[in-house]
């Protein structure tokens, strides 16, 4: 197997202009305001692995997903797929992007209610010209539906006839119909009930093994992530604060934010272990704190944390962006 990473982000960043309208700026002297949704994000996804990105709302994890599949354009940095820069002039980016697909969070919003399931699943096949004729297309759609645990006859139905979990299966069938190597899954189970979530997570794991897929898995749920991920990136306010192998991250989280997230998970075992009360909230991304963005909520913050932004530096089996970790205070 090719040992080069399939996907590589190098200092990727994306800004959104959230200024008031032009007239207000002229009349009221309101300044231009830029939201740095993603800043300086670098990571690699190896072939056949699952990299998970976790973080709270507004941390930029979905923006990263959309940058990779090309739903947003980069403001800074570079994204490489299979060793090729997606934005370079000589690269046939649309052709490369055919090899990636996305699964969205809300299975009620991501399927066209006026289309039959067979047309939804067949759309990538038609767009990419993957089937020789109608019969081949029909056979492929039936195969895809069976692969995700639906019946071939379900292709004649409309999305409203399916439950949330079944709709997410249809989304997965559609994503697989273009024969992708890389699937970007943005909170694929967040809208589902737990028992259905288990079905979808098991299905995704089976498909990965059978088809050799590479996943970028976006989720806010650490427990789900610990089940699916080989490696995990923790994001906070647009930056990756810790990146590590899943086993290491969950056994010995290094960054204080990762620790806080793990502490905040309700304890199902009811071991009665004391929980560190989580203080504060995510700051306004329009006015992020100076230095380390986490310092106002961090119990270990000192003067350096308040003034100097920490860089992602290697620690055992991964990397963390924290002065306290770097200095050995933590």
């Amino acid at each position, binding site marked *: 197997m090719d040992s080069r990473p399939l996907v590589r982000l190098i200092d990727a960043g994306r800004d959104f202009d959230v200024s008031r309208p032009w007239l207000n700026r002229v009349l009221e002297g309101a300044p231009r305001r830029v939201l740095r949704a993603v800043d300086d994000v670098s990571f690699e996804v190896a072939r056949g692995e699952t990299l998970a990105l976790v973080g709270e*709302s507004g941390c930029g994890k979905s923006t990263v997903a959309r940058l990779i599949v090309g739903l947003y354009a980069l403001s800074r940095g570079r994204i490489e797929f299979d060793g090729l820069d997606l934005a370079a002039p000589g690269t046939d980016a649309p052709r490369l992007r055919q090899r990636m697909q996305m699964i969205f969070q809300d299975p009620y919003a991501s399927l066209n209610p006026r289309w039959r399931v067979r047309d939804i699943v067949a759309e990538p096949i038609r767009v990419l010209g993957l089937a020789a004729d109608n019969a081949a297309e029909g056979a492929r759609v039936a195969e895809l539906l069976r692969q995700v645990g639906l019946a071939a006859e379900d292709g004649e139905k409309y999305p409203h006839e399916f439950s949330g979990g079944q709709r997410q299966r249809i989304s997965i069938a559609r994503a697989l119909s273009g024969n992708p190597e890389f699937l970007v899954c943005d909170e694929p189970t967040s809208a589902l009930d737990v*028992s259905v979530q288990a079905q979808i997570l098991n299905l995704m794991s089976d498909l990965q093994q059978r088809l050799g897929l590479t996943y970028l898995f976006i989720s806010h749920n650490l427990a789900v992530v610990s*089940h*699916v991920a080989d490696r995990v990136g923790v994001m906070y306010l647009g930056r990756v604060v810790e990146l590590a192998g899943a086993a290491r991250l969950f056994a010995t989280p290094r960054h204080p934010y990762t620790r806080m997230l793990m502490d905040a998970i309700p304890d*199902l075992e*009811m071991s009665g272990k004391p929980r560190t*009360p989580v203080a504060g909230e995510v700051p306004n991304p329009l006015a992020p704190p100076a230095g380390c963005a986490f310092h106002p909520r961090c119990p270990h913050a000192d003067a350096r944390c308040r003034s100097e932004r920490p860089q992602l530096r290697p620690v055992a089996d991964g990397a963390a962006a924290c002065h306290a970790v770097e200095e050995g205070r933590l």
Partner: protein
Amino acid sequence: MSDAPLLEVKDLRIEFPTRRGTLVAVDGISFCIAPGEVLGVVGESGAGKSLTGMAIIGLLEPPGRIAAGEIRLEGRRIDDLPPAEMRKLRGRRIGAIFQDPLTSLNPLYTVGEQLVETILTHLEVGRDAARRRALQLLAEVGIPAAEARIDQYPHQFSGGMRQRVVIALALCAEPRLIVADEPTTALDVSIQAQIITLLRRLARDHGTAVMLITHDMGVIAETADRVAVMYAGRIAEIGPVREVLQAPRHPYTVGLMGSIPKLGTARRHTRLVQIDGAMPRLTAIPPGCAYHPRCPRRFARCESERPELLAVGNARASCWLYG
């Protein structure tokens, strides 16, 4: 904790008449909540948990209606009260907290105006006293600098802070019962933990009974004293939270607990326990035990005879395994 239940629900049945026949959304459920107790009601979408909550606060949307059974608050029957009386009770004796704090607050009024109006509606106090109480409530639910924030509008608050305001609103008249329907679902985990701790503390300090409706077993484990697991409009299992979560009796609860990804024990590429199939639609609830088509331990009796809640240990489960 006194023994007399604060809330008593008996054989509650909620129906939706439709052109194609009557749908039974909640089918003969009974439970009670003691003062100061938190009862968690857990189940998947469509299990009937929110409808049960809505029936208790008297906000069942037509054509949904209570077809049978009764609801008693402090011994007094409340399900047959005329709307005007129910409205007085709601807010005064029963507080409600919903999932989305933004839809529970009026965007055109400041947080203070909404709190003061609620207090004036339910309590015999003057405007100044009401404002003092509003400030005190905001401080109690953990809003920093309450003095400054009381005159702000809901959009100036973050999601977690808004939910705190909604909790303050529910607490205005010191209700005896709070029905909280997915109060933490719209919030991030770190904020969720704060809200859970707050609810827990309020129930303990004020002796308020809480009916906590959620799909999140983790929230139940952290907050509830007892838990009722609902499936297809019925209670599958009810009992002390530790017993139900750690030694579930009903096969549905067993499957549900197994399907939750757990941190720590989780290992990559281990399969989650999965319950095949889906909860039946209201139009096609199977005879006998509603869970039998998905149950790995079903036998003949399950297909024909509906199980009642049977005592197992300190809990009760509606399953013929214990009959």
